[in-house]
């Protein structure tokens, strides 16, 4: 896979990035790739992984009220 053709992991949406990561794992596990290709894919996979994990860690839910006004604060779930 050509690095130039792939969008940067940070610019991809979560679902697309996850799907690409899954396909990379499957390709690597298939063991049919050339060694150089394996390394390239691995690097791409790690980049996607870091981006995905970062997104999950930093996620702050944004709530926009289009109609009406929300009453009360959203409280955290009791653990």
């Amino acid at each position, binding site marked *: 896979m050509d690095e130039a053709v792939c969008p940067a992991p940070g610019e991809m*949406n*979560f*679902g697309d990035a*996850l799907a690409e*990561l*899954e396909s*990379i*794992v499957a390709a*690597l*596990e298939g*063991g049919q*790739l050339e*060694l150089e290709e*394996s*390394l390239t894919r*691995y690097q791409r*996979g*790690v980049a996607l*992984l870091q981006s*995905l*994990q970062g*997104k*999950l860690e930093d*996620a*702050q*839910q*944004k*709530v*926009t*009220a*289009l*109609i*009406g*006004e*929300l*009453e*009360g604060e*959203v*409280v*955290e*779930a009791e653990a």
Partner: protein
Amino acid sequence: MAEERAVSVSEAMARARTALEGVRLKVVGEVSEFADKAGYRAAYFTVSDGDAAMQCLMWREQYEASGVTLRCGMLVEMGGHFSTYAAKGRMQFVVRSLTLAGEGRLRLQVAELARRLEAEGLMRPERKRPLPAYPERIGVVTSPRGKAVHDVLRTLKRRYPLAEIVLAGVPVEGAEAPAAIAAGLSAVADAGSDVVLLVRGGGSYEDLMPFNDEGVARAVAACPVPVVTGIGHEPDTSIADMVADVRASTPTAAAESAAPSMDELSAALIKTRRLLGRALQHRVQAAAHRVALLVRRPVFTDYTVLVAPAAQALDQVALSLRRALPDRLETDRDRLARSAADMQRLGPRLAEPAAQRVGHLSRDLERAGALLLERAEEAVTHTAARLHDLSPVAVLGRGYALCRAADGTTVITSAAQVATGDRVSVVLGRGRLGCVVESTEEEVVNG
């Protein structure tokens, strides 16, 4: 008293009947007993309000026309009049019209709408769309007040804070609710939601009526993205539930079905990281193993193996060469010189007899050729004469004749082959006769 005269029971009942039949009423009550047996000409049932009860009958034709299927506990509104059943001395209410009252009436209307929308195909399983696995924007249509909206927001925050939420806070009860819900659905869809949650908490059956509204049902069906309902009113199913892509039992369940769990995702990513590392490690190990196998091959461990046979052969040749070269060179030089001298001497002498011999041979050849030709000509002439003697034409020339059947091909060799009157063709030494057989004789004395 003028009316002191005693009357018969029948007459008493007839008078009661006359008095009662003028009482025409509309009555609301709950069905407490119901008997509808095949063969009865009327449906018999009892309607009560807890303090009083009345026995009712409705003639079958009218009962079936009402479209109501009576069940105990049903709230009904009846129109009709009282009458009597003289044989048992009973008073009864003769029902002329029957409809469901209150919630029963609503349920009937809802069931009717459900039937209609189902017939249109709005509830078909193939219309149900799958939910996006990782929605980026989730629309929520519900009341901005109360437990439902907070259940949804809390669940989404816990499970999938990655998604943005667009909320349409709309009234979910009352006359204006259906239009507001439909507007809310379209607003969150227009805002780019990947999935829409339409939720509210439980309530009475009548409170849920906006979710049984035809306009709401059509707005759900027309929504460009999947709709998940979470209308907490088990065991009732609203029409919005039936038309939605996914029906969850509560607002929280709706939120859970629409968003993946971040904890599960994190765990999955950690697992993926391990898999990724392991897969690459395997790939590299496989490559390393192949290299290691190659490195251990003798060609790489001992280069002499590669050149040994060639080196040995070279040594051998060098040895023979060294041994043979000086002697042979001397001998060969002498032999060559002698040969050259011999050649010069013998050359002309060798050629002379050969030329003579060639001359002889060519003359012999010419003679032999001419002789051969002569003999061949003689043989041909002789053979031609033999051939002529053997020819049937030559035989015919000597006075014999050839008799053929009328077909011109079959040769007649026996009198038995023809009958009197047959046409035959007789070939002579010169010319042909067309003959008719006059008689046949099997045996002829040779003469």
